[in-house]
């Protein structure tokens, strides 16, 4: 059970105003722009961090054990105006110019707050294991040692930058220690002094160190969306030693975990960052404001043993007690998982804690397929949204939402895009515009290659070949654009050290940033989007054109171009009379494998040792399935033009009617041993898993899916009635936390569109 103190603090979180901002950070960041502008990039970065950490308030909470938060207040209108003016000055420029500075970004709201000389992209799995075993002193020593070896000027600057950053963290931790002493908290102060340079010696010290580091990385350096990776595993030795020495008992440790989790929620806003129609998202002045941090528990070790330990249980217990957005907890299932632990996890999921499951038995083979080596493959985890990460071994996120409905449309139109047909003579250097490459989205018209006339396509296999040609072409175009971008990056942004370069494997050792290749892995998360929409469409094509021969391919294509106008009966028939993915029907489900094979072959063709970045395939749309749908004309599954695509791995809206086991059996047809992430959302009516027996049901349901080759599951146990009640009376449901895609959100804080999407998910009952 949570302490009353934390319960009250949590209740207060929901009363906070989303306009609250860490104004100190903004003030000292602004100051630093001119203070160090004549220094080299890395040194300037370090000095900026140092300047901010020297000046911002350190806050000791007398009622807490884990210290560290930033002062927040609501800025007045004039302040906001002034800040925004600076942001505009930083980023109002042509896309080409901006590209030279940031290369990759998510959207304007996200980019706007980031100082151009002090930019990090977040989405990071730092090497926490190294951090707590070496301490800041040890990490600095690595840089000192590396300086003794041959270095060019850039490398010297880089290592200097690293040392300044580490010193700044040490100084900041000491400031906390001094304040704690002043506040009469000697034991806390001693902890802080210890970890300011040395590796932590106790469980509490380790948690404190990771927390203060997180506070700086996230709220000062803007590294949102961290992967704490297998925290149970790397903290267990310290916990065990404490227990053995009688320094701590289980309840005290639970409380420390609870404080750590609480801090992760306290320093974020409660908004849903993927809803751009909510004010918190558009108006925020914060660098990292509401995107969750991930934490992994359990899973296999390289030697085949299970990593489940005392702390795994305790972390799930605390997540269950809290039911907050953060951290986003991943439980790694594997064959032979401890039954008690598995039941505990299912019980937490049943009560809507932010806990989701991934399957080691597909994830590890999939990551190995994309050349991730042992032993680090066994430490895999995730950051948002559901993107795989090898902690410590790679830097930040690059992503592409591969809209799989686009090549389908191209295949049916010989490479043309009916909603905006290609003009005669129009040629592009690359189908992906610069903006699309930077965001990873495929917006507007994409033209393919001129594949053979539809009348010449005589079999389904021939059609699939054409689809594959278009699919492969688009992936190739992305690769082409990406590589030319990388050339620009080499010229303009290499050598720019960032916070995370202090805490990754290979960066200090090689004295280069991770972007330059300091780390072992670099990936582009390649998110296959529209899985069910495309599967359903392929099935209709096979049935209506090649099996029943009711329509020719040309006739079908014509209907789609007309958005079914004049063909209303066919639209209804396709939508309601043809079997759909998600009902355990072999004839439809076989396309899950066929489509995945096409996807993987296309990705494979443009991966290889000649590229720094490798594409890793996932099945994930995040919440962009609506946006992606807007880019695609009508499809043969009876979907009208611009309607949303199917969400993540789910069957198309409301089309899975044969029960949840049937739905899961359909999904098992995806060869997940090639897929490295992405969510399957499942909404269960509370009555389907009521009572104690419900935990057993859920445990069996999930386990079976995993044994059948499923990869991931995340559930919401909630009925439509409750959701509708929450819409009516939001104040009563402030803490109703739901899993959206790769993050949880408070339902009443989600935008209207997201709320509607959520309510429309199939509600599995019995």
């Amino acid at each position, binding site marked *: 059970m949570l302490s009353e103190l934390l319960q009250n603090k949590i209740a207060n979180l929901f009363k906070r105003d989303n306009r609250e901002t860490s104004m100190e950070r903004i003030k000292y960041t602004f100051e630093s722009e001119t203070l160090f502008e004549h220094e080299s990039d890395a040194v300037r970065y370090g000095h900026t961090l140092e300047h901010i950490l020297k000046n911002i308030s350190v806050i000791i909470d007398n009622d807490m054990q884990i210290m560290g938060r930033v002062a927040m207040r609501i800025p007045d209108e004039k302040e906001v105006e002034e800040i925004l003016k600076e942001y505009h000055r930083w980023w109002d420029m042509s896309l080409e110019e901006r590209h030279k500075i940031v290369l990759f970004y998510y959207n304007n709201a996200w980019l706007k707050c980031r100082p151009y000389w002090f930019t990090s992209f977040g989405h990071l799995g730092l090497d926490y294991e190294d951090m707590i075993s070496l301490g800041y002193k040890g990490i600095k020593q690595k840089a000192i040692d590396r300086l003794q070896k041959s270095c060019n000027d850039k490398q010297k600057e880089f290592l200097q930058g690293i040392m300044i950053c580490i010193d700044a963290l040490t100084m900041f931790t000491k400031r906390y220690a001094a304040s704690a002493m002043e506040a009469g908290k000697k034991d806390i102060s001693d902890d802080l002094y210890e970890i300011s340079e040395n590796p932590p010696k106790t469980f509490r010290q380790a948690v404190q160190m990771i927390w203060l580091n997180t506070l700086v990385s996230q709220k000062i350096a803007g590294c949102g969306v961290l992967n704490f990776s297998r925290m149970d595993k790397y903290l267990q030795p310290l916990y065990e030693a404490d227990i053995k020495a009688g320094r701590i008992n289980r309840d005290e440790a639970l409380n420390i975990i609870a404080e750590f989790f609480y801090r992760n929620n306290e320093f974020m806003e409660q908004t849903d960052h993927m809803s751009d129609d909510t004010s918190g998202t558009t108006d925020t002045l914060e660098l990292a404001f509401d995107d969750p941090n991930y934490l992994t528990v359990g899973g296999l070790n390289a030697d085949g043993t299970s990593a489940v330990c005392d702390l795994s249980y305790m972390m799930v217990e605390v997540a269950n007690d809290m039911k907050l957005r953060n951290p986003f907890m991943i439980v790694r299932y594997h064959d032979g998982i401890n039954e008690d632990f598995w039941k505990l996890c299912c019980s937490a999921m049943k009560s809507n804690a932010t806990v989701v499951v991934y399957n080691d038995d597909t994830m590890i083979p999939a990551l190995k397929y994309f050349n991730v080596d042992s032993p680090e493959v066994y430490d895999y985890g995730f950051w948002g949204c559901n993107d795989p990460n090898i902690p410590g071994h790679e830097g930040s996120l690059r992503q592409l939402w591969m809209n799989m409905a686009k090549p389908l449309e191209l295949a049916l139109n010989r490479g043309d895009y009916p909603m905006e047909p290609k003009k005669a003579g129009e040629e592009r250097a690359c189908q992906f515009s610069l903006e699309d490459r930077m965001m990873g989205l495929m917006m507007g018209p994409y033209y393919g290659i001129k594949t053979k006339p539809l009348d010449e396509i005589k079999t389904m296999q021939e059609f699939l070949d054409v689809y594959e040609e278009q699919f492969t072409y688009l992936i190739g175009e992305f690769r082409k654009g990406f590589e030319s971008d990388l050339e620009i990056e080499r010229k303009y942004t290499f050598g720019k050290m960032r916070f995370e370069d202090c805490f990754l494997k290979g960066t200090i050792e090689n004295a280069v940033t991770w972007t330059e290749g300091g780390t072992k892995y670099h990936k582009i998360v390649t998110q296959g989007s529209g899985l069910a929409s495309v599967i359903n469409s392929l099935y209709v094509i096979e049935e209506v054109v090649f099996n029943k021969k009711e329509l020719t391919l040309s006739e079908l294509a014509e209907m789609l171009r007309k958005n079914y106008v004049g063909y209303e009966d066919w639209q209804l028939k396709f939508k*309601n009379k043809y079997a759909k993915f998600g009902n355990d029907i072999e004839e439809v489900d076989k396309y899950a494998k066929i489509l995945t094979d096409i996807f993987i072959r296309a990705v494979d063709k443009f991966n290889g040792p000649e590229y720094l970045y490798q594409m890793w395939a996932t099945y994930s749309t995040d919440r962009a399935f609506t946006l992606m749908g807007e880019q695609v004309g009508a499809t043969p599954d009876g979907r009208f033009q611009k309607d949303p695509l199917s969400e993540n791995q789910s069957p198309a809206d409301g089309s899975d009617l044969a*029960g949840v*086991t049937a739905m899961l059996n359909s999904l098992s047809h995806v060869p997940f041993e090639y897929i490295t992430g992405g969510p399957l959302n499942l909404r269960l009516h509370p009555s389907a898993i009521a009572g104690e027996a419900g935990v057993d049901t859920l445990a069996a349901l999930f386990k*079976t899916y995993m*044994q059948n080759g499923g990869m991931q599951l995340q559930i919401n146990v909630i009925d439509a009635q409750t959701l509708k009640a929450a819409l009516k009376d939001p104040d009563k449901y402030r803490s109703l936390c739901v899993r959206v895609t790769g993050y949880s959100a408070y339902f009443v804080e989600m935008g209207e569109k997201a709320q509607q999407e959520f309510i429309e998910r199939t509600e599995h009952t019995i």
Partner: protein
Amino acid sequence: MGQIKGNIFNIQRFSVNDGPGIRTTVFTKGCNLRCKWCHNPESFKKQPQILFNKEKCTLCNRCNSVCEQNIPIDSRNKSSECKMCGKCIDQCYFSALSIVGEEKTPEEIIKIVEKDKLFYENSNGGITISGGEAMLQVDFIKEVFRLAKQKEIHTALDTAGNVSFDKFEQVLPFVDLILFDIKSMDNKTHMKFTGVSNELILDNLKKLLSRGIEMHIRVPLIKDINDSLENIIDMMALLQGYENVTEIKLLPYHNMGENKASSAGIIQEVFEAPSEIHIKQLEDLIRTTR
């Protein structure tokens, strides 16, 4: 065995209320009781029938244009002239019209049931055959159960028990668990609300109890009809001492069958569920008298 076929009206996967674990429940069509509160009224008749869900109908008229008998849409579900050709259903794109009831062989049933075998294994679940009255198609269900046992799938039979005992004798070798429904211990009430006497039913119950096979007793609970303390006390007296009864479950009335009834052209009386306090009282009574 030749080609035995069963008349069934639904195969429900991920059933969690018809016996232990995750189950697939096969509902047979045809019943020799007419419980006024029945939540599966489309199972009364053995023959397939047309269901018409008025709420889903958009009045698009496609169905009327293909009906060779010219039966208007709103009376197709009760018309004796309907030849069940199914053409109107093909034309209905809104799931307003559907046929309930189809013939399936035991092999076809098992093929579907088998798909969730691993779910059963992990949850101690299996197959349940319910109704309607499953025992009216004893040859068929016996074969389904036999095939299930062959595949090592746990088997449960849900019955109201109104058939001669020799039929039970036929299926018992292949059944692991019986879900036995008791509507009322009072014969007059039983006659009035189910249309049949409970004598044979209770007689069968006693015989099954003494066989030692695992049983769950299920009582649909309807306010002012069978929710008296007396009814429960009488029932508990009958069950006294039988350790093979591993569960006694009260199932409070719900009116979800009403919509299905009107779709099937049946006008159904509306009942009430007992209050939650009263249900709890009865549950306590069961617990203390066991």
